């Protein structure tokens, strides 16, 4: 008899908790994979496609599904490190021997050579190029992510990727400079 009570009580408990869990699963359902969001915020959003995916979000999804974390050259080592922390994997050097600390660049159109073909406008993933057919184009430096995608389509090769000049705000003390000492 006692055994029966015990069984009934446990069974009832199991049922109640099962219901609670089931309800919670529906009520507090998480849409999508939250890891993808987190990875996406770490990625530099240049949308350059150098990882082999069409944009940063697809790469984030690929990483969430187990792809390598070292395919983002614009992010450099810092991004790889952050991704390694997030994904709980070992940080490794960038694939393809890319620079650990990428030089920030922006596209620059040599405007007197531009023929106004609008091909770069179509290539730009962030609409950072303005211009019209047979009109000179120019790059909105502040919006340019330096993704390189406009260089290839240009039929007259008038787009250069120029390193961003340091300003007083971005200038850093050269701490690793070797101090020069005079030897008498």
């Amino acid at each position, binding site marked *: 008899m006692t055994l029966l009570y015990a069984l009934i009580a446990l069974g009832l408990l199991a049922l109640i908790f099962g219901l609670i869990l089931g309800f919670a699963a529906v009520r507090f359902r998480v849409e999508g994979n939250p890891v993808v969001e987190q990875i996406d915020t770490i990625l530099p*959003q240049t949308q350059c496609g150098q990882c082999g995916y069409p944009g940063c979000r697809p790469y984030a999804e690929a990483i969430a599904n187990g792809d390598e974390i070292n395919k983002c050259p614009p992010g450099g080592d810092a991004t790889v490190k952050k991704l390694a922390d997030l994904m709980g994997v070992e940080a490794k050097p960038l694939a393809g021997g890319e620079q650990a600390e990428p030089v920030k660049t922006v596209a620059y159109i040599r405007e007197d050579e531009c023929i106004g073909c609008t091909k770069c406008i179509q290539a730009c993933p962030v609409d950072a190029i303005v211009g019209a057919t047979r009109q000179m184009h120019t790059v909105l430096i502040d919006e340019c992510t330096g993704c390189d995608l406009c260089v290839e389509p240009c039929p007259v090769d008038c787009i250069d990727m120029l390193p961003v000049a340091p300003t*007083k705000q971005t*200038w850093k*003390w050269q701490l690793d400079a070797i101090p020069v000492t005079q030897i008498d």
Partner: protein
Amino acid sequence: MEKLLEQIKKGTVWVFPGGVHPPQQKSLSNNAPIARLPLPEKLVLPLKQHIGASGKLIVEKSQHVLKGQPLTKPSANWSVPVHAPTSGTIIDITPMPSAHPSALPELSIIIEPDGKDTWCELSPLANPANASHDELIDVIHNAGISGMGGAGFPTYVKADIKQPIEFLIVNAVECEPYITADDTLMREHAAEIIKGIELMQQLLNPTLCIIGIEDNKPEAITAMTEAAKHNEHILIQTVPTVYPSGGEKQLIKLLTNREVPNGGIPADIGILVHNTGTLFAIQQAVYEGKPLIERVVTVTGNTIHNPGNVWALLGTEIKHLLDCQGFSPVPQQRVVMGGPMMGFTLPTVRIGVVKTTNCILAPDHKELAEPGPEKACIRCSACADACPASLLPQQLQWFAKSKEYDKLQEHNLFDCIECGACAYVCPSEIPLVQYYRVAKVEIKEQIAEKIKSDRAKERFDARKARLEQEQAERKNRHKRKPAAKSTEEQQKVADALARVKDKTSDGDNKSAVAAAIARAKAKKQGGELEPDNSEVAKERAARKEQARLYKEQKAQNNGDDEAVDDKKSAVAAAIARAKAKKAAQANEQTATDDTTNESPVAADDKKAAVAAAIARAKAKKAAQANEETASDDTASESPVAAGDKKAAVAAAIARAKAKKAAQANEQAASDDTASESPVAADDKKAAVAAAIARAKAKKAAQANEQTPSDDTTSESPVAADDKKAAVAAAIARAKAKKAAQANEQTPSDETASESPVATDDKKAAVAAAIARAKAKKAAQADELAKQSENTEPQINDESSEGSQQTAQEKKKAAVAAAIARAKAKKQQKEGNDQS
């Protein structure tokens, strides 16, 4: 609250944690009064000498400027102008090394002084005490005043702050060693500084103004106390000499025991701090109208012969300052802008003085030794003891070295004021502040990157959305169009069906179809020049029906030649009408009366109809020809009694020709009565002969006549119960018309009356055609002699002979007639051209 105020008034000074006591070295420079220097050879003025945006350039190269003239004008937020420090010429506007440790080039105006030092017109406020808030702010803004203590914050922003200000603190501490600029300024210009303070009090209305002065400046304290005696809201507070008590947050803590919250500004706790130099500049701007063009700079150090304070025009090269005070550099000479604690070594002495430059230090190697190589941290924690912000410098150093920026932020790196106390006390000579500076820049950069990447993502998503939308729109456009079309088409189809039903209910399929075709044509030609076509088509359809009826009738009374029951004649008549209409539509410069009398027509043959149609077409063409003279074109058609289509066709042609003739250029008024008599010829040959005769007559008529001639083309009645005769007659008529078209100088009335023609033989038709052709040719010949032509009237026995005409349907005849007509038209055209 009251308690705090009382405490402050009692002279209580609180202490901030940490702090160091570096050697003062102030006596080097604070003994001499502030010196005036000779004008430098050139002035290098960076457009931006403060925090915020640079102003908009309003001068240009090689422009002459006066002392105090604004060179830029404030454009964006937090932008203040710069002014010409002396009169002279702008020799260049170009990027020059800036007063920054990096010496990164910055757009600068280079002025070559003309030595006259001419002021521009100054407009000081007449009565500053009564000036409105906005007026004062404008004056401060336009005078280009920004914080002169070090940060260079635009003063007008501070003065215009919206938060209520309880304490106005004047920073006269000047805690850094060597610097005595504020000290000497207070000694010499205490009254002006107090006036500046009173202006700020007027603007901000604080409860109390506290002037904090370190106790190592007794003379300044005396002078200030003296000057501020009259104002009970100004309190002069002496603070102990501890570095960095001159830091804004440290001074607030010292004087009010309040702490500025992390990430906040002093205004958040009701406090505003101003530098003495700034207040002096405000007084100068308001009372004297002088913009900020010079400041006191301490030039000191063991390599300077006459260390002291000088009034340096903004933009004066450091080299000029050093040279004026006597400078004997040592090897590896360093020149530091700012004090020894927070200043930086200048990469070149060709840098101009800016609004924040308070000291130029040129030390020898003993007094300010080059820091030795960095050694390992021994975790002595001296730095933590020295830190005035209660941070953990050593910890920060580790994180900075390993680039753990989030940890740095957790440890409040941004509360570090970079005072250098930690580095000063560090036994391992670790350049701690530099590490923090780099880390700060890195973090700021990361934040900027983050903002940028968010923006990039936003733009990328927006672009994606836009592209998708565009694609969807394109797709929808494809979808929508056919749909719209189909409804339209359905409507059309329905309409068509309805019409067809109507027609079939009318009884005849063919007519319905014909009507439909006619409508279609009408639609096609909608808006074109020939709107009659549809009507014609309808008529044709009607005629066809009639023709069928008549056929039946005809079959019944075969032998009887009833003129009225003859289809062909009907057809011909119809054609004639059509032509008449066309003619009416032709470009006539004079009004033409076109009376088309239609007799009841009865047609019973398709072919005839076709032939007629062709004839009409030709006639229309002719009618459209240019007519220059007024012509009355009366196409009166008598009931055609022809039982033969061909005859009808021929008749039609004849009529057409008649019209053409009427359109011809006639200069003389001529009555051209082309009366055609019913041709009663039952012989072809006769007809042919007659035709030839007529042709000749016409030719003669076409000759150039210089005198008005009455051209009566009277055609003799030819007995025609023969088509050929009819044809011939037609030709004759045509010729007559041509003749009329000849160059006649008088207007001609042309009555083209057509007699019913009856032909029943093909050969005859052919012959007639040939005859006509010849006749026309002849008519086109140039004849020089004037001839009056009498063409035999053919009108005579129209009706009587018409009744005799037998109806015979022969295709061949029709064909021949058609050929003949074609030729005739060609010739007509030629004739027209000639005439």
